[in-house]
């Protein structure tokens, strides 16, 4: 990705991220966050993480933000009421903590070694990796090594290979977590028929 595009998408991500924090209207915040996530997905694509970028758009910019907008509109939340007193202490603390953290991160990343390993010249060696995959034998499907030898990065296939071989157990635990989350949401939002408060 050309450097210009990196700066464009970084600006979109950070600018709309700032708008989430300062906007008074919750709907404006939610839509800004969706745009910010799309910019972030573009940054993922620039890092050759095509699967994660797609997931970011589908799950975050799609499902999660629709859920947020649905709840905001369901509750019919108006713009944040001005209570007459602005909590200056909280705003000052927020800005101070964020500034300290930003300075710290800038300092630390300024000291990272600018060696070949941390620059973009750490190029992918697709042909060698393809030969290595092929040498692993017939228990692996040939599709990954074929793609690699053709000079393209089969990102989703490699993710699938990692998730379903190395992290198969973890994947099932996460599936169980989603089931528990679903049951929990139903239990939380069930209205009690007897009139006593359910939650």
């Amino acid at each position: 990705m050309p450097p210009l595009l990196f700066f464009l998408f970084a600006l979109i991500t950070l600018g709309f991220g700032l708008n989430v924090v300062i906007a008074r209207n919750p709907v404006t915040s939610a839509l800004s966050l969706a745009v910010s996530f799309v910019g972030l997905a573009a940054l993922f694509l620039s890092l050759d993480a095509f699967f994660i970028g797609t997931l970011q758009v589908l799950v975050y910019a799609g499902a999660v933000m629709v859920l947020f907008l649905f709840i905001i509109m369901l509750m019919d939340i108006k713009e944040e009421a001005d209570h007459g007193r602005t909590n200056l202490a909280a705003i000052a603390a927020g800005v101070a903590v964020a500034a300290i953290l930003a300075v710290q991160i800038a300092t630390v990343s300024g000291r990272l070694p600018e060696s070949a390993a941390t620059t973009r010249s750490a190029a992918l060696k697709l042909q060698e990796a393809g030969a290595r995959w092929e040498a692993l034998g017939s228990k692996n499907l040939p599709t990954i090594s074929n793609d690699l030898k053709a000079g393209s990065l089969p990102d989703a296939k490699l993710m699938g290979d990692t998730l379903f071989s190395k992290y198969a157990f973890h994947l099932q635990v996460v599936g169980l977590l989603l089931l528990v989350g679903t049951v929990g949401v139903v239990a939380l939002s069930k209205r009690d028929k007897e009139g006593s408060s359910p939650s």
Partner: protein
Amino acid sequence: MITLNHYLIVSGILFSLGLAGVIARRNILIIYMCLEMMLSAANLALVAFSRFNVTQGLPDYTAQALVFFTITVAAAEVAVGLAIIVALYRTKQSVEVEAVTKLQG
């Protein structure tokens, strides 16, 4: 030339923005959105490390598997959190953090 440092700085600023929002805002929904932003900043750092830590000619897919799990957990967290917020709104008729003081000692 875009290096790892560029991505880490963007990730750090995004995390800081989210943290500032969590501390300064009063609306619980916006606090939740800022939490999501902080999680995404962590994801960006992970993916950047994955890409620049080239192992055997390919990106390090362990980090991207971790990002996959993070996204899944974040989605579950949003669902449960929003259900709690709706239940809270039903009893308090407000989404401001200052309306919830029952556990204050």
